[in-house]
């Protein structure tokens, strides 16, 4: 599975939405499922999947699927 696919699967699973809804334009608070608590859950899941640390400065920037994809692409392959 590619990193992109893993990210889509992870976002869909964390937010509890179908993978088809995980488009680049999907962003925090634009869907009821992506609220403050699920945003933290998503960041924790992302840390685990990418084996990296996300501090809160970064957390408040990763508010769209596009931003998360870009962030994942910057990470060293695990």
């Amino acid at each position, binding site marked *: 599975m590619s990193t992109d696919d893993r990210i889509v699967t992870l976002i869909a699973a964390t937010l509890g939405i179908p993978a088809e809804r995980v488009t680049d334009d999907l962003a925090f608070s634009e869907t009821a499922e992506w609220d*403050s*608590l699920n945003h*933290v859950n998503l*960041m924790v899941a992302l840390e685990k999947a990418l084996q990296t640390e996300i*501090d*809160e400065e970064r957390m*408040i920037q990763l*508010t769209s699927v596009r931003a998360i994809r870009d962030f994942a692409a910057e990470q060293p392959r695990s």
Partner: protein
Amino acid sequence: MRASIQPVSAVPANLLFEHLRQYGLPAEIINWKYFDPGFRHSGERGWVWLKEDKVKGLIGLLPFTLASTAGRAACAWTCDWFVADAARNPGIGALLLKEAIEQEGLLVTLGGNEATARMVPRMAAHAVDAAAVGLTLPLRLGGLQAYRALAARAPGAFGSLSKMPLRPRGGRPNVGVRTEAGIAPPLAEVLESATRGAAWSPVYDFDYVRWQLERCPVLESFTVYVDDRSAPAAAVVWRPKRGAHWRMAFWAIDTGAEHCGAVIDEAVNRVYALGAESLSALAGRGDTVSLGCLRAAGFRENALSLPLYVLARDRNTPIERVSGLGYADSDLGYRF
């Protein structure tokens, strides 16, 4: 997650002060609530998110103790959960609460706002809907909810009808009851001996109640207590300064239902004489003794119903619910 969230004790007071002022908390309330040395406690008063050397997020805490026949547990009520520009700082509120749970071990939320209702139930180890219910005894026309709703719709149309009495002046209780301004020292003994059963309930000491209901700059209070050490019972009664609507919290031992009734009756008589339009109390939905005493004195349930959430680092915590609830809990006392 790595978070630079700090305990309130590590943050300069002026930064916390500036943050809370943004949310409309008056300076006198902030000083009393967070910086009054009369609130002696052993625990953090909250956790903050610092950004660019400013407090941008806070979850306030009020340390207290829960007790039951099983033991005692250090705990804290949550309050003042504010994140600046929350829409642009997603997740900070949840992160603050998660950090507070992790660091403190056990938190309890009673009531709360829309954000609380949306987020806290999903983070709670245990949730109890309608854990506490409000009860009111209208004493004058202004104490009737229907009248207040009408008067709010047509301000000034009802003149001074709000002061029209709804009840005759009450008789004297048939046991010895005393009243003192402020929080009277005999309350200490009552707080110490108040019944604690198998259910977990909040335990406050004299300093805590004095801080909350006497030292609070916007309240005025008095204490009613039974002058009988065999069955201690006492109530603290308070209002916003010069307000017409009063509140009450009371403590007793189970065998003291008669004394509890006497304390409540005296509280009612006293506030009535002071021109009160209503007297209200809060009780746990399962607190049958408290509810029975209040109903016997004529109190009836109002629309207030508060959920309770137990937030625990160990989600298998044996503390699933909290009984013995009242207006002395959390920061409900001054929020009229």
